[in-house]
């Protein structure tokens, strides 16, 4: 009944991800990451409202090495999710469905996110 000689379908681990697949996965992952980031953002807002030592503590945590790394990740997640969200909005109104267009817009979003993150941190 079972034929061990038959070819196996490719598994995720050995499959070369098309850029569109990567962006689709990243959209969900960055969305989730940003939802968690909302808790940190709220905590920072509350520290800002409290002021004084509470704000100092929050800024010390956020500006620590780990804090900066997380914020770098969240800022990249923000720009990637925003850029890819706009890509989805174009699809919603019927534009960019061709394979070549979807690939190009995926690269565009990825490059936009890298540049926007870099500009954000340079200006900050």
């Amino acid at each position: 009944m079972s034929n061990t000689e038959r070819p196996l379908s490719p598994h995720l681990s050995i499959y070369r991800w098309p850029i569109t697949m990567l962006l689709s996965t990243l959209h969900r992952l960055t969305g989730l990451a940003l939802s968690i980031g909302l808790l940190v953002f709220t905590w920072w807002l509350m520290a800002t409202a409290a002021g004084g030592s509470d704000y100092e503590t929050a800024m010390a945590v956020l500006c620590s090495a780990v804090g900066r790394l997380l914020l770098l990740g969240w800022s990249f997640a923000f720009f990637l999710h925003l850029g890819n969200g706009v890509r989805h909005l174009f699809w919603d109104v019927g534009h960019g469905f061709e394979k070549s267009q979807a690939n190009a817009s995926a690269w565009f979003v990825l490059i936009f996110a890298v540049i926007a993150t870099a500009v954000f941190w340079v200006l900050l």
Partner: protein
Amino acid sequence: MSSSATGHFIAQRASALVLVALGLWFAWSVSSLDSLSHESVVAFMTVPFNNILLLLLSAALAYHSYLGVQVVIEDYVHAPRLCWFALVLSRAAHLAIGLLMAYTVYDIGFGA
């Protein structure tokens, strides 16, 4: 849940559009501040126009996050009762976070 799918679709897109504008505005504003000192941040947030946009941003963030997390829960939590529980928990958490953010922004802007 499927009966409100169109409503969910529209709400997700509408809040996304709001967040594109307000998100870029906020990122630009934060990076344009002279410093992230308490004085500088509070001075920015107490400008009425900024405060109102921050209130809108808070509401849109909590709402859009709620809609997104809902889809993720529905996609991956298959046990019906656990799914229901996770959805209720997410709704309560997002409502609380949204209200907390809005109240905090209002407090910074117009509080005593």
